[in-house]
């Protein structure tokens, strides 16, 4: 998807005092920025977005993730305005919920995303990946992002939720408007959320009249403290599962293909040792963790010598934690057989990514099927690769030349 709006924010001069996670320099390559800040300013601040803090050390990121006393999750995507307090439930429970409500909203969802339930989806994902590659027949150059990575999660999540499989493009537009476009005026963002709500209202009402075996009906029948969930709670959760279940995973798939296409030694290694896949997948997740979370500071708190001010944003860059040399040996190196890999790609603490098992399944299958069908491939044009801006980072355009088909 192309962002047609002209960027109006000024370029960043000093990342310690004026950083912007939507700046083209960050979007293209954030790693040197984090490495620099970790050494000289472990908690950076910017006046942009009405005030936002940025920790880059693993220790600080961990501490904030666990600290629900000083940080609220009432908003998790940094944008032009800090929303009014709507926790403990929030607009998209449970990601926007705080304790104690959070655990109840989360507990309802956990069984549907457990590893054994998710594993049953494997044949469906395998079939989907093969079909996408079948559709590339006759083309030597394909877009690993648009033609492959971006088509896998929408189909899987649509199936789980009970939304039409053919609505993938509609999902993509919603995701662009909620996760991208964060520097758009508040009224423009509000309108985008309104469109998402009306799309979901139609499907939620249809499910109320015609219940079926999917997550929408499941949530409509679920109860907390003996009461059914409100219409808004169900809609918020479905919006969350759609948005969080798609962009994040396709970013991980795309970044993994990017790495393999641009690193001959790792591509050859995985080709010759396919049993290495589960270990490699965790290293893809560590080194290319797509998701940076955010919190709102609930109460002034000091972290590594910086006082974080109530009411301002705090980014939680788990990808930066995963690159901290204090936490990982050779943190800046991709080590395909890294056996000890305590990465935080799925976050930490009570908000651990609900869909982590689904993401891991989709990523594993996507890479496995790609390698089986395209044993050798390279980046067609490294300078043509573009990355998504904002808090979910993955390749948007990924031209790959297929060198060998199987």
């Amino acid at each position: 998807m192309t962002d047609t709006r002209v960027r109006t924010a000024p370029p960043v001069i000093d990342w310690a005092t004026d950083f912007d996670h939507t700046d083209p320099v960050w979007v293209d390559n954030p790693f040197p920025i984090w490495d620099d800040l970790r050494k000289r300013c472990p908690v950076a601040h910017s006046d942009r977005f009405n005030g936002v803090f940025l920790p880059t050390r693993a220790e600080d990121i961990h501490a904030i993730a666990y600290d629900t006393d000083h940080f609220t999750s009432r908003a998790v995507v940094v944008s032009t305005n800090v929303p009014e307090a709507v926790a403990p439930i929030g607009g998209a429970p449970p990601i926007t919920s705080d304790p104690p409500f959070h655990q109840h909203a989360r507990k309802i969802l956990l069984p549907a995303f457990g590893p054994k339930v998710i594993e049953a989806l494997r044949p469906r994902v395998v079939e989907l990946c093969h079909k996408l590659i079948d559709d590339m027949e006759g083309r030597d150059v394909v877009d690993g992002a648009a033609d492959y990575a971006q088509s896998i999660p929408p189909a899987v999540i649509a199936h789980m939720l009970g939304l039409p499989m053919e609505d993938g493009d509609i999902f993509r537009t919603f995701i662009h408007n909620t996760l991208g476009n964060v520097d758009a005026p508040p009224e423009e963002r509000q309108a985008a959320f309104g469109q998402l709500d009306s799309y979901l209202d139609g499907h939620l009402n249809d499910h109320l009249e015609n219940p079926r075996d999917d997550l929408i009906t499941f949530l409509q029948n679920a109860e907390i403290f003996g009461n059914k969930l409100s219409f808004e709670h169900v809609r918020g959760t479905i919006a969350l599962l759609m948005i969080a279940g798609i962009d994040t995973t396709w970013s991980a798939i795309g970044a993994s293909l990017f790495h393999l296409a641009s690193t001959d030694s790792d591509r050859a290694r995985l080709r010759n040792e396919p049993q290495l896949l589960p270990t490699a997948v965790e290293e893809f997740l560590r080194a290319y963790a797509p998701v940076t979370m955010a919190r709102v500071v609930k109460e002034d708190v000091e972290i590594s010598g910086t006082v974080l001010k109530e009411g301002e944003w705090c980014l939680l860059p788990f990808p930066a934690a995963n690159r901290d040399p204090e936490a990982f040996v050779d943190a800046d190196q991709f080590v395909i057989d890294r056996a000890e890999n305590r990465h935080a790609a799925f976050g930490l603490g009570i908000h651990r990514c609900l869909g982590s098992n689904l993401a891991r399944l989709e990523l594993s299958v996507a890479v496995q099927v790609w390698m089986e069908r395209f044993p050798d491939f390279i980046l067609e044009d490294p300078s043509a690769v573009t990355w998504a801006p904002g808090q979910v980072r993955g390749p948007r355009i990924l031209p790959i030349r297929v060198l060998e088909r199987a």
Partner: protein
Amino acid sequence: MRIVIDAEKCQGHNRCYALAPELVDVDDLGMAQVVNGGIVPAGSEDKANLLVANCPEYAISVVE
């Protein structure tokens, strides 16, 4: 050697279950549960240590 899981710390990442389902199972909520009281069969000690080293929440330990 015995595996101990701190249920207060476990958040259901399932890294342990993915690495060694013979040593760790999961409940309906996806939270880790030791198999056979956590007793590590002879020869699986390295695997058990690997579980400890990969838990993002530091929820797993081994005791002799």
